[in-house]
């Protein structure tokens, strides 16, 4: 089993954190993982993305040229990665701010109103974790429970108090994905 996912959005949407949490969870489940961030001269803004691979065997290339899965947080990211998706790959979409439909018919799509759900949970910043929860639910790369364990590694000190809302975000995202796929597949 080798799972490859691209996570992409604006700088500041928590793209890298989502990727690192997934990699950390993969490590915790004793799998091989690589996390490869895009990096540029700017610290904030612009499109940021990362490639995460979780595998049962040693990972050769850490670069994902044609994603099996993509977690897409903004429109520029959709435009960038939609053409690159593997056939039957899956795009998990932040529907709230992406009005555009996926044009390709040979990829699966899961649209989540993630930013709205995040707002309802009380913090728009957990949009990334809602989508990550959705991804974990659909692709079974790692379990939601392990992702929750990873939160404890990354959210420490001042950020520790954010663990409960992030846990809820993972659960809510997973439930939303289940619901969406039940209605659309």
């Amino acid at each position, binding site marked *: 089993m080798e799972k490859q996912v691209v996570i992409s959005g604006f700088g500041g949407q928590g793209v890298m954190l989502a990727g*690192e949490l997934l*990699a*950390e969870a993969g*490590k915790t489940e004793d799998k*091989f*993982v*690589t*996390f*490869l*961030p895009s*990096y*540029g*001269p700017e610290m904030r803004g612009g499109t940021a993305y990362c490639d995460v691979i979780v595998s049962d065997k040693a990972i*050769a*290339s*850490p*670069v994902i*040229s*044609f994603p099996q899965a993509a977690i897409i947080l903004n429109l520029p990211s959709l435009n960038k990665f939609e053409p690159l998706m593997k056939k039957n790959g899956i795009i998990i979409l932040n529907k709230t701010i992406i009005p555009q439909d996926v044009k390709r018919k040979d990829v699966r799509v899961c649209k989540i109103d993630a930013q709205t759900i995040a707002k309802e949970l009380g913090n728009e910043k957990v949009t990334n974790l809602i989508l990550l929860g959705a991804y974990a639910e659909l692709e079974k790369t790692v379990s939601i429970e392990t992702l929750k364990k990873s939160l404890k590694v990354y959210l420490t000190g001042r950020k520790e108090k954010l663990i409960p809302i992030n846990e809820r975000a993972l659960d809510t995202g997973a439930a939303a994905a289940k619901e969406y796929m039940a209605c659309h597949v």
Partner: protein
Amino acid sequence: MGEKVLMKGAEAIAEAAIRAGCMAFFGYPITPQNETPEYFSRRMPQVGRVFLQAESEVAAINMVYGAACTGTRVITTSSSPGISLMQEGFSYIANSNVPCVVVNVMRGGPGLGDIAPAQADYNQATKGGGHGDYHSIVIAPHTVQEAADIMFKAFELADKYRIMVVMLMDGLMGQMMEPVEFREWVDVKNNKVPVWATVGQGERGQRNIITSLEILAEGLEKMDIALQEKYKEIKSGEVCCEEYMMDDAEYAITAFGTVARISKTVVDLARERGIKAGLIRPVTVWPFPDKVFEKRAEQVKFFFDVEMNEGQMLLDVRLSVNGKKPVYYYGRLGGIVPSAEEMLGELEKLAGGKNENII
């Protein structure tokens, strides 16, 4: 070995260096390796060691030179333009026979270039780089774990031969995170000053002088020959090379560092399609594993060299193969990382007898 931690390459090498007994870091910020000095700046004071941000790469390498003269395990890290600035120091260090470790997280060039991953400093690193007849040991890891392991080896080699050891990485390996397991800490409690070091004569019978200067040509020639003798010894004992799926390979891909890692995917994909490919990955790019190529030249139909530069290691491969088999090249420049798929496409064309787009 302890537990696995998820770390960026740029941080893993710093932690590995500390565990390997590195007592001092001197360096200057440059992208894409800033996580390394930042990590050292946090950790070195915690373990009672030296971290100093120098005013320039020029100063940094000369601080390293000074620290090396005291026999202290010392490191600097930088990226291509910064490494260019350090070349004069490298040359002095070589002819002074003092040990140190230098990491080059290569980025696109020439000039200011960009900050994307590249391998275009291969020639600079393996052929010397500064003035004069000298070499450094140059090691090119291809995973974060390997980089962490090699850091220990780098300090051991530096001390053993009193030589500079270069770890040749690239921006991708620096930024990438992978689980790493570190070797046991090197015990530094009983560190002794080596007999050759310049720390003040003390109880030593005679004083020590460390210099790269010998004004008489006859004398300098002797020093130069002594250096070459040392290099011969290193060439005969310290070559390191990994072969992947080479036993029955008809086609040998050859690459180092990040491209070598991607090449393993290419080998797997090629074999799925019935193309018997293998990979020869020089781990030490100086000394270069020429014997491996010599041997495999009897076996394979051709070599396919892939690099993130205009074909720099290519020349070493061709020298080693010595005309026995064709050596083709494919590369991307400017900081573009070649994809496994495009490399496979090129390999398929070659294996099918066509070789357009290949120099």
